[in-house]
C-alpha cells in the first residue's frame, strides 16, 4: 500500500520533470523571416561583464536606450562574470548563458564550437572592421567570418619593475635583471608555466605557431616551428629564467610579497603603482643573449571581445547587434579606458591623447613591435605548450633535454590532429562550389558505399570539385576534377567502391 504512495510520489516528480522537459522538443519557428526591418521594441537582455565593468555597462545601456534611433529599449540584467571564465560558463548551458558577454579572445574557438557565438551579419561585420584595428579583427575571426565585436586591444604583457632593485640601465637585459634580483634576494614573477607567456620566448627568436580554422571554427591544421634550432634558442632563454632562484611562476601584483619584477598586463597597473610608489617602473620585455646574440622577448597581443549568443528570434538578434555595436564603439571604449584603463581597439579611440599618454599602454605599444597578434588557438594547445617550461625546469639542463622537451611538444601538437576513424574514413566534397576556392570540405553521408552530399548545391556549368577521404588527397575521386556540364541544383553522389561520381538533380 505504502509502496504505492512512494510510487505516486516518484511519479509526480517524474511528471513535473517531463512536463518541463518536453516543452522545448518540438522547436518552434523563429517568426517572420521577411517582414519589415522595424526592430523597435523592448528586449530583455542578459549581459555578462567582468565585475569591474558591471556598473559602467549598466549606465552605457541606459545611454543606448536614450540615444538609439531604432526605438529599441533594452531591459538589461548585467551579471558579473569574469571574461576569463566566460567560455566555461557559457558551455555549461548555452541556453541559459548571457545574451551578450565579454570574453578573452583565446576562448573564441571553444565558444564557436559549442555553438555559443552567433556569426555577425554583413553590416555588423563591416562596422567592426571599419572601426577597429586589424589585430583585433583577426582575433574575432574564424575562417572568413567575424564571430564577435572587439572590445579592447590591450591583452598583452610587458614588464613592471622596482627601480630600487633594477636600475633603468639594466632593464633591457634579461641577464642583468636576473642578476640584480638574485643579488637583492628578490623574486621575478613571470608566469612561464602558462603557455600565453611561454610562447613569447619563441616569438622573440622568430618562431611562429599559426592555426588554420575553417568557417565553422574547426581547426584544420597548424603551422608551427617551435621544435627547431631557433626554438632551441628560445628554450635556452626560458631556462635562464626558470633555473634562477628568483623565478616565481606568477603574474599577480607581487611587489608587496617579495618580487622586484612582474611580467603582467595593464589590468594590474593601479595595484602596482600603489605598491611601488616612487620606484614604479614599466617598460617592454628585455632581451636575452644566447651564443653572443641578443633576442628581444616577444609576446602575444590580444583582445577582449564582446560575443552574442545565437538567438532564435531574428528581431531580437538584430536589436542586440545594435547594442553590441554601441557598446564596442568609440565612446564606450574610451569610457572603459578612463574608468579602469582598458586599452581601446577602436581606431579613433586609440588616437585619443589620453590613450597615447598612458604609461602602460606606451609600454604595451613598445612591446607591440615584438608581439604576435594572438590568433584563434585550439583549446588543448594551452596545456601542451606550458609543459615546455615544466620540462625545462625539471630537466638536467643539457641541450639534449631541451631538445627532448621541444620534440615532445611537437608530437603533442601533431596528435591534436590525429583524426578519429570516423573523420579519417569520411568523404567530403571540395571544389569551387558556392564560389569557394577549394578551401572548404562539404560533408557527405554514407549509405553503405554510396556517399551523398548533405546538401544540394546550386552550381554553374564549369564548376569543378572532387570527393576526398579524410580531408586528404590520398584517396580522391574522380581522378581528374569533376566538371559540371549543365548548371543546376544537385546532390553530389559518390560510389566509394567504384570511384564513380554522379550528380543527382535536387
Amino acid at each position, binding site marked *: 500500500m505504502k509502496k504505492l504512495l512512494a510510487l505516486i510520489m516518484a511519479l509526480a516528480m517524474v511528471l*513535473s*520533470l517531463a512536463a*518541463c*522537459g518536453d516543452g522545448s522538443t518540438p522547436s518552434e519557428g523563429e517568426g517572420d523571416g521577411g517582414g519589415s526591418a522595424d526592430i523597435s521594441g523592448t528586449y530583455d537582455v542578459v549581459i*555578462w561583464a*567582468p*565585475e569591474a565593468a558591471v556598473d559602467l555597462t549598466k549606465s552605457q545601456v541606459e545611454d543606448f536606450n536614450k540615444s538609439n534611433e531604432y526605438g529599441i529599449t533594452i531591459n538589461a540584467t548585467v*551579471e*558579473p*562574470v*569574469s571574461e*576569463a*571564465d566566460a567560455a566555461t*560558463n557559457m558551455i*555549461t*548551458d548555452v541556453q*541559459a*548563458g*548571457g545574451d551578450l558577454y565579454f570574453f578573452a579572445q583565446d576562448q573564441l574557438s571553444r565558444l564557436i564550437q559549442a555553438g555559443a557565438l552567433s556569426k555577425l551579419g554583413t553590416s555588423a561585420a563591416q562596422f567592426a572592421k571599419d572601426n577597429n584595428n586589424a589585430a583585433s579583427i583577426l582575433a574575432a575571426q574564424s575562417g572568413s567570418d567575424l564571430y564577435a565585436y572587439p572590445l579592447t586591444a590591450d591583452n598583452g604583457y610587458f614588464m613592471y619593475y622596482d627601480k630600487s632593485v633594477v636600475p633603468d640601465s639594466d632593464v633591457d637585459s634579461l641577464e642583468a635583471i636576473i642578476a640584480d634580483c638574485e643579488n637583492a634576494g628578490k623574486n621575478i614573477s613571470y608566469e612561464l608555466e602558462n603557455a600565453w607567456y611561454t610562447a613569447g620566448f619563441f616569438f622573440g627568436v622568430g618562431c611562429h605557431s599559426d592555426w588554420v580554422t575553417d568557417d565553422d571554427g574547426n581547426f584544420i591544421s597548424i603551422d608551427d616551428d617551435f621544435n627547431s634550432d631557433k626554438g632551441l634558442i628560445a628554450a635556452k632563454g626560458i631556462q635562464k629564467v626558470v633555473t634562477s632562484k628568483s623565478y616565481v611562476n606568477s*603574474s*599577480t*601584483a*607581487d611587489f*608587496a*610579497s*617579495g618580487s622586484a619584477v612582474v611580467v603582467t598586463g595593464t*589590468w*594590474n597597473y593601479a*595595484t602596482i603603482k*600603489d*605598491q611601488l610608489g616612487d620606484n614604479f617602473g614599466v617598460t617592454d620585455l628585455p632581451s636575452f643573449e644566447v651564443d653572443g646574440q641578443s633576442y628581444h622577448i616577444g609576446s602575444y597581443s590580444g583582445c577582449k571581445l564582446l560575443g552574442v549568443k545565437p538567438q532564435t528570434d531574428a528581431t531580437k538578434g538584430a536589436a542586440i547587434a545594435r547594442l553590441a555595436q554601441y557598446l564596442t564603439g568609440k565612446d564606450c571604449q574610451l569610457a572603459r579606458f578612463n574608468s579602469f584603463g582598458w586599452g581601446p581597439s577602436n581606431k579613433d579611440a586609440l588616437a585619443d591623447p589620453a590613450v597615447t599618454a598612458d604609461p602602460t599602454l606606451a609600454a604595451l605599444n613598445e612591446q607591440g613591435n615584438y608581439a604576435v597578434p594572438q590568433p584563434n588557438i585550439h583549446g588543448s594547445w594551452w596545456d601542451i605548450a606550458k609543459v615546455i617550461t615544466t620540462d625545462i625546469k625539471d630537466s638536467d639542463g643539457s641541450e639534449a633535454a631541451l631538445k627532448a622537451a621541444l620534440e615532445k611538444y611537437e608530437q603533442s601538437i601533431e596528435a591534436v590532429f590525429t583524426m578519429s576513424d570516423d573523420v579519417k574514413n569520411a568523404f567530403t566534397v571540395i571544389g569551387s562550389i558556392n564560389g569557394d576556392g577549394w578551401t572548404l570540405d562539404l560533408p557527405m553521408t554514407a549509405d553503405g558505399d554510396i556517399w551523398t552530399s548533405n546538401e544540394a548545391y546550386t552550381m554553374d556549368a564549369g564548376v569543378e570539385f572532387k570527393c576526398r577521404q579524410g580531408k586528404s588527397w590520398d584517396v580522391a575521386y574522380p581522378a581528374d576534377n569533376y566538371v559540371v556540364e549543365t548548371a543546376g541544383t544537385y546532390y553530389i553522389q559518390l560510389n566509394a567502391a567504384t570511384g564513380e561520381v554522379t550528380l543527382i538533380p535536387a
Partner: protein
Amino acid sequence: MSKSNKHHMGIRTLNRVSNGAIYTLLAIISIIWLIPFVFIVLQSFRVENTYQVGYVIPQQWGFQNYINLWNSDFKRWYLNTFIIALAAAVLQTVIVLCMSYTLSRFRFKLRGPLMRFMLILGMFPGMLTMIILYRVLADLGLTQANAVPGLILVSVASSGMGYYVSKGFFDTIPKSLDEAARVDGATRLQVLTKIILPLAKPIVIYTILTAFMGPWGDYVFARYVAFGTSSGYNVAVGMYSWLTNDQIDRMYTTFCAGGVIVALPVTILFLCLQKYYVEGVTGGAVKG
C-alpha cells in the same frame, strides 16, 4: 621489523614524559592550529593595502574591508547560504532520522539489500552526476537566480544516504524500550515520537549541526547551479572569485573579512553545541 631496542627507548621516554612536556606540546599544537585563523582575522582589519603582503600585523587598523563587504553582493550571498543552511538543517534532519530510525528498528525483507545497495551507490564518485542534476534543476527552473531552492532540493533529496551515523546511535538505544511500549498498545509512530526521539536528542542536534554547516563550504556544485548569476551565489562561490588572478590584488583583504563573517556564526554555534557533536561522532560515526 623494528627491534625491541627502539621499543624500550619509546617506553622510557613515554614514561618520563612529564605533564610539563605535554603542556608544551599541546601549546605548540594549539598555536599551529590557530595561526591561520588569527592571521585571517588580523588581515581583515588591514586598511593600508588590499593585496597580499609579507607581514601579518596591519600598519593601519580599520573596518574598511567590512564596509567593502557590506557594499558588495556579499549580503545577498550570505543570505542565500543562510537560507540554504537553515532549510537543509531542518529537512535533512527529518530525512536522515526517518531513514536511520527505520533501518535501525525495523526488520523487513528488503532491508539488507537496501543497505547494501546504498553502500554500493556511495562508491560512485558524485562529481559527474553534477551535470545531470544541473539539467534536472534547469528543467524545473531552479538554477541561476533560483539556485537557492535548487540547492536545497538536491542537498535534501540525497541526504538519506548519510544515515550511518545516526543509525549507529539508534542502535545503542535498547530495543526493549520499544517492545515494552508496543506491549502497552502504542503504535510505531507513537514509539518514535514519545520514546525514541526524546532519547535521541544528541543525535538530532548533531544532524542539525552538520547539515547546517555543510552549505557554507559548498563550492563546486553551487557554482555549477548558479553559474553567471550573482544573485544565486552562495558565499563560497562568490568569495572564490575574489581569489582569481584578476581580482586577488583588489579583494584579498575583503576575502579575509568575508571569511571572518562566514566563520564566526558557524564557529560560535559549533562551539556551543560541541558536546552534542562529540557525542554524535563518538556514538555513531565509528560504527558506520
